[in-house]
């Protein structure tokens, strides 16, 4: 509650200073005696704070409270995801570090070694990880308070197993490890499928569809990641070093496999993602059939047309 109050005060304060000139008179209105330092280099300025606060409280993201961590009694790290939940397939994770003394958002920190781990219970006792993105990046340069990373879960928590997540906070050369913490991964609502796998030789790859929730009727950017399972299945599956091209063929299973024209294959982008263009001619359930080719153009998974390798999205 205290943090919220402080943030709310900051918000009011920031709002006031937007409309007025940024003056020297820093005694925040109704600051309840809390001393907000004039300049705290470690923390974001007022505008950045306002933007970060707005982003983290806009109702879209919610905190995964089990992953909250106090560091050295000075900071608190919070982890957010869409609605504070995790589901099978691609999930964005957001991290923010607040300074306990003044509630300010810390600018410089890194999140590394995100390690999701599934422990299978019952008959087949084993452990494996799942695709993750590279280290966390600044989510939005206009408010460098929030880091973003992603995890794409292969399966949901349930009777067959449970998920743990660990991560490392790095700040000014120091590291703190948040050890394995139980998280809940929900199944995706039927008939959605946002993660698929294929094999090339002995290698297993995962195709994670990254922006399934953004699709609308019309022309869309489609974004995905290709991850490769390493020798140790307990280690996170990192982005595949291979370069693929992924042809897409969207169809509507409920409408006799009606399709749309003008779709563009997903190709590797400088940031390691794959991007293409996806045309959806109406709302409803769409199967995005995939045909994966290697750098030489050889088919390695799926096929032309109604490939058995497909994601399913609902718009």
């Amino acid at each position: 509650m205290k943090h919220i109050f402080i943030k709310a005060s900051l918000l009011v304060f920031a709002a006031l200073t937007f409309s007025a000139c940024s003056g020297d008179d820093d005694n925040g209105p109704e600051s309840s005696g809390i001393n907000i330092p004039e300049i705290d280099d470690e923390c974001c300025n007022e505008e950045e704070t306002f933007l970060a606060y707005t982003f983290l409280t806009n109702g879209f993201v919610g905190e995964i409270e089990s992953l909250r961590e106090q560091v050295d009694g000075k900071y608190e790290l919070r982890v957010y995801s869409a609605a504070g939940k995790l589901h099978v397939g691609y999930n964005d994770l957001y991290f923010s570090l607040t300074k306990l003394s003044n509630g300010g958002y810390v600018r410089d920190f890194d999140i590394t070694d995100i390690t999701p781990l599934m422990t299978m219970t019952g008959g087949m006792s084993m452990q494996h990880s799942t695709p993750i993105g590279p280290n966390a990046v600044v989510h939005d340069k206009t408010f460098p308070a929030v880091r973003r990373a992603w995890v794409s879960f292969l399966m949901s928590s349930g009777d067959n197993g449970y998920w743990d997540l660990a991560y490392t906070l790095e700040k000014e050369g120091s590291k703190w490890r948040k050890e394995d913490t139980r998280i809940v991964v929900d199944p995706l609502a039927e008939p959605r499928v946002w993660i698929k796998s294929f094999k090339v030789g002995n290698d297993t790859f995962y195709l994670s569809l990254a922006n399934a929730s953004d699709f609308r009727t019309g022309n869309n950017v489609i974004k995905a990641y290709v991850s490769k399972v390493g020798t140790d299945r307990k280690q996170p599956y990192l982005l595949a070093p291979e370069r693929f091209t992924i042809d897409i063929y969207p169809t509507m299973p409920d409408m006799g496999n009606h399709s749309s024209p003008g779709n563009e294959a997903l190709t590797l982008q400088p940031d390691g993602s794959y991007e293409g263009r996806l045309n959806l001619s109406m709302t409803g359930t769409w199967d995005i059939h995939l045909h994966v080719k290697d750098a030489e153009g050889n088919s390695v998974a799926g096929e032309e047309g109604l490939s058995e390798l497909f994601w399913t999205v609902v718009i």
Partner: protein
Amino acid sequence: MFTLLLLAGGLRFAPTDTLTKETAIEEVVVSAPVGEGQTFADKGRAKSIDEHLLGLSKVDVVRRGSYAWEPIVNNMQTERLSLTIDGMKIFYACTDKMDPVTSYVESGNLRRISLNSGLDGNPQATGNIGGSIDLKLRRVGFDQKPSEYNASAGYESNGNVQVYGLDAAFSTHRFYTNFGTFYRHANDYKAGGSTRVRFSQFQKVNAFANAGWQIAEGHVLEGTVIYDVATDIGYPALTMDVKDARGFISSVSYRREQMQGFFGRWETKLYYNRITHDMDDTHRPDVKVHMDMPGRSRTAGLYSLLSGSPGRHNLQLNFDAYCNNLFADMTMYPRVGKPMYMLTWPDVGTFETGLSATDDIEITARHHVRLSGKLSWQTRRIGSDEGFDALGIYFPGMKRQGSSLTGRIAASYAYEVGGLRLACGTGYGTRAPTVTEQYGYFLNNIFDQYDYIGNPRLRNEKAVEANLSAGWKGSSLELKAEADAFFFTDYIAGRPETRLSPMTIGAEGVKVYQNLNHTRIVNTSLSGAWTPIEGLRLDGRISYSYGAESSGRRLPLIAPLTFAGTLHYRFRKLETQFGVRTQTANSHCAWAYGETPTAGYAVWHLGAGYTFHVRKVQTDLRAGIENLFDKDYSTYSDWNHIPQKGRNFYVNLSLQI
């Protein structure tokens, strides 16, 4: 062609009104006073608008059921016609053309239907390459009978059709009003051979009111309201029916009469109409995916018409403008899974304004010239982001708004001497694509089983018309030969696009509207009337039409050789008629458009009418049999070859005080 005209002996069958001055204009009276119709032997006041339209010689209809037939003029459908109600623009709201605007009025609302053939349109008409139909409202007017009451009832055995109408009219020198209500109900009809045609029922209620007030001598204010509700309408030719189709039509106008100077009459009218149309497939068996398909059409507009007859001229100058909004969407409900949604008319707003002029010049008693022209500017915009984005898939980079200039010009000349009348005319005109042709989105056409997508990059369609007619009127014989040819460039038609995938389950593919290089439509007819003795008259009309693309490929819905003939006999207040309508097989059909052959047929009808007084009540009693021999047949324009009605007995009674 002329050999054919000369060989084909035929007689005229056209209950036209008085306005026969111009070759191009033909009228049919809808609401004649009881006892004063042109013929007593037809269905009279119980006739539907569609049946009245068929009384115009150049009009045929596309039937998708027993209700709401789509007019065809000169073998052209709605896209190439102008349809107005008393000069008011009104646009149908169904993407599948289930509701031509003629379905939103009733016979009781109208005084007559006026048709201008070809490019010589009425002043408010735009896009009228094939012709323009104006439905003239039935206003009682000033200085008529102080009060008049009408009642009519009709029954038809086939389909248990019931028709009831009631109206009243009051008139003084300063004020008039007339109002009434109409009800129609039909069950499924039976085709020849007593096969029931499922989903051919309908029900309709209509109410109208007109009022006029002469504020001062020559200054007239008038108003009209029509409310029309049709429910539970079956369309046996389609896969869907209609739950509810309603139209609200309203206008107010101000008119100056007997003005001094060049123009004697000036009328300005403001109008608004709204149509809501909701399709329904819930009564159909084997529906794979249930759909909701509502459509909405709203139009507001005005026109201002100056008319005058200075010297030998008969001038009309008209300014008009309207705004129309068309919105239609479709929600499909799979048995499992999320409903699918799309906009089939993406909230399209159209603004159009135009100036027109018409002059009938009587150079001498023998030489007549008629000139008409109109220039219009139109702009159209897609209102819905979602609809715009969806079309953008098919037309990347398309613009959201577009405008175009269209126009028409027509000239005709007539020479009259004795009973002979020779006339020729020509015209050039363009039309902008319709909303369906421009922005329609996956509109399934059951005729050819294709899904249609509009094309925002269409050019305007252009046409040149040439017509000729020769008529002779003797003491007992009338003969008339007519020919009318239309040569199109950039003719708009759907063409298969094999790269696209259809949406409708089971569809053959997708067609996209495109401009075809050249097409032509030629219509010829020979008609006549023979009155050998007083009271006996033989009418007949034979017509032949041809329509093809430059490749030789035939156009669809072009009538094959058709003959209609009627023998009338009148004895005092009793009139009887016996007639036939026959068509040869439609074998040269337009395969590329999904048309398949129909067999030839001949159907006979018989009717009688008697008019009499019971004290002050003028009474009309009419009875007859349609399809006398219960022939099982369908015509070239019966959508999906749905059968026509089998034998049908009707009886109608009209009373007037």
